[in-house]
């Protein structure tokens, strides 16, 4: 492929990022060297390229020097690609003639103790960017229509808030909730901290607002089974599970009195009973009963039919045994994921005896015991003998700050416990309350004051995490084994009741049927931890509440409102520009083999098999992963902005000097490139010989790129991408993985050691994994570089 134009004028702008880059990388030296590169006509340095002054100087330099390619060497493109694209546009240059070199996350921050080598690497990263810039082509961004409708997944307080906010702003909202009622965890709590508001009293009205809002379609007892499409144009399939009770139900409650089946009530933490026909709790929305088919005698009049009989006797006919699950398809423009966290299962810490000892409760069970609509109507009793406990202990960090389960702090449990102790003290001041804790974290507004009140009320706070609880078999009293750290002594006090302050588990991996990046802790990852806290890597999909990290009600609501304005921003415009990274087929060379059609997960590339005509790409459907281009046997598919020639030029530039020492890494923009960035942000140091090439998906990596790298003498090559189930292009990295055997066979033929090539799945949350891989691969490269030198010596 020839150069698109002969008069190429490249400008290189180096950023010191205050001292973030400049402290390690000598950017003046890099600038001097950059001037010697072909086609580079202008080089400048900036203290902060992203600042208004920095951008203005870039803008002026582009205009004054008539630059037609722009390279900025600064931070990660995941942070500021859009910023500098906009700068380029404002200077009258097409944004796709811009390229970034990441000399911060991939260089200065990970080689903090090796300034000389880091400077050398920074220059080579610039050289690679310049090599790609030379071949860049202008592109026009097509606009796509945005459906002004949103889907909110999860009907907890975050989902409710997001739905109401968007609905009030005038957008149609579908709220999909898995369980029979909305309300989530907040609906089962008694009081909220730090204000001691009654939880359901403040949530209840919002729940009914959802039901009555003209712009909200509530889909309770429903699950999202499939999401397809792209920003502005998503299609979702919703499974509406059969309730067997129609919407005419007035919740008169007659049916429950005749239902012969009793099962433990999950809303009450199994501390009470409910019937097989039931409503989860009195304030449930929709206020409509349902039949639990797992326990019902058979959902037909022959097996039982008592509920239908009584309903008909009362003059209604709301029970429909013929109800069936059905699938509804909806079209939406944006999605807010608010599916929440999972409460930690205390049975996983057997030494605390939850599930074996009746008087050991978890937070949620305790909340129900205290709740006026709970099993005891708000009377605190212990389950073993229904006596009011006189001595109550709370144990903090159950499942949190624990490497065996969740390493993170679960955020809400300290205040949850402090609130509970105050509630007990308020009703029964004579109760002795002890809290065992590692650290009390009362960081929010009004939190420390609440902690102070609990101390004033005489709650004992003992610093120490108990190792076990033993039950006295006769009395069912509980003995807690703990070191009182402040007194430096072992104590084993006895209690009538122990409450385990459970933390939050990450959501299940399949909580939404669309790949969204997750952190190492399992929670969904935001697009940027500071500046895009409710965006995801997928445009048009936002996150709010406990699905992002463990958080309390206020934070969930704040995030939900933030997510809804982000979604509303898109919907308000009515259309959005999308990146023109599409596949193009060179019809003259296409043999109509059909390989590409099997690679495309979107059905964007098609072939008429009978007619044997060349493949055709539907650009509206193409997402730009490049899997088809990499696997095309004729190499006649061209990925715009990530062409074979552009990537090969990067490979060549990266391996120009001392290739035998280099580790060339292909990283996908969504996961492994993010992992590399995280290693940078976390200052995880690794050797300076890595050179990362960014592609949209691991699926883009043509084996030819790897062959070229080894033929140029690369020390080691790594092909990296998302974990297989997380691929943002559904199946791109599966096909990338399939190429491994082909590549390894080739390595064998060439007599190249297998160790020098690796395939790694690294999520955007796995900075440590990236660091480890780089360290390992660079050792391998070093090993082979040394052995090669030994062989070469006699020749020299």
């Amino acid at each position, binding site marked *: 492929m020839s150069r698109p134009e002969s008069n190429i004028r490249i400008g290189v702008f180096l950023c010191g990022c205050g001292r973030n880059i400049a402290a390690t990388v000598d950017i003046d030296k890099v600038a001097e060297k950059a001037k010697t590169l072909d086609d580079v006509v202008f080089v400048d340095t900036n203290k902060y390229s992203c600042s208004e002054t920095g951008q203005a100087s870039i803008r002026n330099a582009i205009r004054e020097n008539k630059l037609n390619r722009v390279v900025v060497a600064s931070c990660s493109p995941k942070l500021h690609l859009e910023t500098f694209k906009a700068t380029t546009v404002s200077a009258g240059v097409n944004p796709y003639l811009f390229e970034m070199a990441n000399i911060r996350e991939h260089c200065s921050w990970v080689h903090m103790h090796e300034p000389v080598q880091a400077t050398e690497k920074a220059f080579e990263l610039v050289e690679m960017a310049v090599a790609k810039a030379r071949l860049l082509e202008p592109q026009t961004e097509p606009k796509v229509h945005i459906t002004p409708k949103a889907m909110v997944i999860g009907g907890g307080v975050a989902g409710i808030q997001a739905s109401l906010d968007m609905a009030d702003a005038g957008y149609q909202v579908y709220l999909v909730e898995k369980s029979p009622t909305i309300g989530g965890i907040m609906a089962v709590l008694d009081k909220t901290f730090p204000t001691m508001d009654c939880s359901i009293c403040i949530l209840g009205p919002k729940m009914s607002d959802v039901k009555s809002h003209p712009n909200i379609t509530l889909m309770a007892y429903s699950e999202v089974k499939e999401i397809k499409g792209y920003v502005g144009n998503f299609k979702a399939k919703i499974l509406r599970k059969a309730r067997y009770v129609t919407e005419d139900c007035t919740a008169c409650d007659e049916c429950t009195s005749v239902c012969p089946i009793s099962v433990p009530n999950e809303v009450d933490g199994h501390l009470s009973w409910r019937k097989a026909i039931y409503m989860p709790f009195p304030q449930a929305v929709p206020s409509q009963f349902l039949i639990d088919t797992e326990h019902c005698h058979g959902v037909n009049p022959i097996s039982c039919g008592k509920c239908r009989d009584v309903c008909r006797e009362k003059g209604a006919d709301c029970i429909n045994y013929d109800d069936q699950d059905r699938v509804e398809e909806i079209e939406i423009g944006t999605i807010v994921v608010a599916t929440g966290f999972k409460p930690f299962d205390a049975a996983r810490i057997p030494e605390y005896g939850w599930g074996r000892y009746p008087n050991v409760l978890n937070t949620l069970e305790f909340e129900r015991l205290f709740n006026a609509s709970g099993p005891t109507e708000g009377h605190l009793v212990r389950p073993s003998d229904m006596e009011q406990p006189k001595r109550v202990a709370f144990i903090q*960090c159950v499942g949190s700050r624990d*490497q065996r389960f969740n390493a993170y702090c679960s955020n809400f449990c300290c205040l949850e416990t402090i609130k509970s102790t105050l509630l007990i003290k308020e009703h029964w001041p004579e109760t002795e309350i002890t809290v065992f804790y590692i650290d009390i974290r009362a960081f929010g507004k009004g939190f420390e004051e609440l902690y102070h009140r609990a101390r004033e009320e005489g709650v004992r706070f003992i610093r*120490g*995490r108990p190792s076990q609880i033993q039950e006295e078999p006769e009395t069912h009293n509980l003995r807690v084994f*703990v*070191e009182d*750290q402040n007194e430096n002594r072992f104590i084993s006090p006895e209690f009538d009741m122990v409450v385990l302050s459970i933390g939050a588990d990450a959501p299940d991996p399949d909580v939404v049927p669309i790949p969204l990046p997750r952190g190492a802790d399992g929670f969904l990852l935001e697009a940027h931890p500071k500046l895009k806290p409710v965006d995801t890597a997928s445009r048009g999909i936002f996150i709010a509440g406990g699905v992002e990290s463990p958080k309390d009600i206020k934070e969930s609501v704040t995030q939900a409102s933030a997510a809804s304005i982000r979604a509303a921003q898109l919907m308000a415009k009515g259309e959005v520009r999308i990146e023109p990274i599409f596949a193009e087929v060179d019809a003259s060379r296409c043999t109509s083999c059909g390989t590409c059609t099997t690679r495309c997960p979107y059905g964007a590339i098609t072939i008429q098999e009978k007619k044997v005509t060349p493949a055709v790409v539907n650009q509206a459907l193409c997402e730009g992963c490049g899997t088809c281009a990499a696997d095309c046997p004729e190499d006649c598919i061209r990925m715009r902005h990530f062409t074979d020639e552009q990537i090969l030029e990067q490979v060549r530039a990266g391996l120009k000097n001392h290739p035998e020492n280099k580790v060339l890494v292909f990283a996908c923009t969504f996961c492994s490139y993010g992992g590399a960035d995280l290693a940078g942000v976390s200052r995880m140091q690794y050797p300076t010989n890595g050179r990362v090439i960014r592609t949209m998906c691991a699926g883009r990596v043509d084996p030819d790129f790897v062959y070229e790298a080894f033929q140029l003498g690369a020390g080691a090559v790594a092909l990296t991408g998302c974990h297989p189930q997380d691929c943002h292009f559904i199946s791109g990295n599966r096909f990338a993985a399939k190429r491994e055997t082909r590549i390894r066979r080739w390595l064998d033929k060439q007599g190249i050691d297998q160790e020098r090539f690796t395939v790694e799945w690294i999520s955007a949350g796995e900075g440590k994994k990236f660091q480890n891989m780089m360290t390992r691969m660079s050792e391998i490269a070093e090993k082979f570089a040394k052995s090669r030198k030994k062989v070469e010596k006699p020749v020299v």
Partner: protein
Amino acid sequence: MSEVKKDVTQEKNEEVDSILNELEALAKVVAPCLECTTCASACPVFQSDSQRNPRRLLNRLGRREFEGLLDEVDFWWCGACYSCEAHCPQGVPLAHVFFRLKNLAFHTGKPIPKLVLRTGETLRSGFLIPVKKEITEKRHALGLPDPVCPDTKEIETLLDATGFSGRIIQSRKLD
């Protein structure tokens, strides 16, 4: 003469360095410790004697207060029941750390509590706990055979080979 002297100091320095390196490595191992106290409350030694606290030993290591650490006798009381390790939420291998401390103290000629030395003596008889009549009776009641005495010669050889016997004699002299 002076050259020999220099060699000795150099050797001494090297030895001190290697101990410091070892302690530094241990400090890294215990770095995840949050001082949550779970290990202490699970430790049968601490449960009966609040003076001997595994957490405080860990804390000293973590803060790199190495001075006099090997002269401590607390870690010698660790019976390697592994309760602390099993309970530790941060996965700190406490018993392993105490073994390393014991080995370091042993090899650098630090005082060893009499209790431990006596254990070495007892081992020569083949049993850690002397076989009493009650024990034999209990074993019979449970349908277990009489305990078999291992080859004491072999134990002696082992104790000699590992330098344990030498250290016992040395400690007696110190006494």
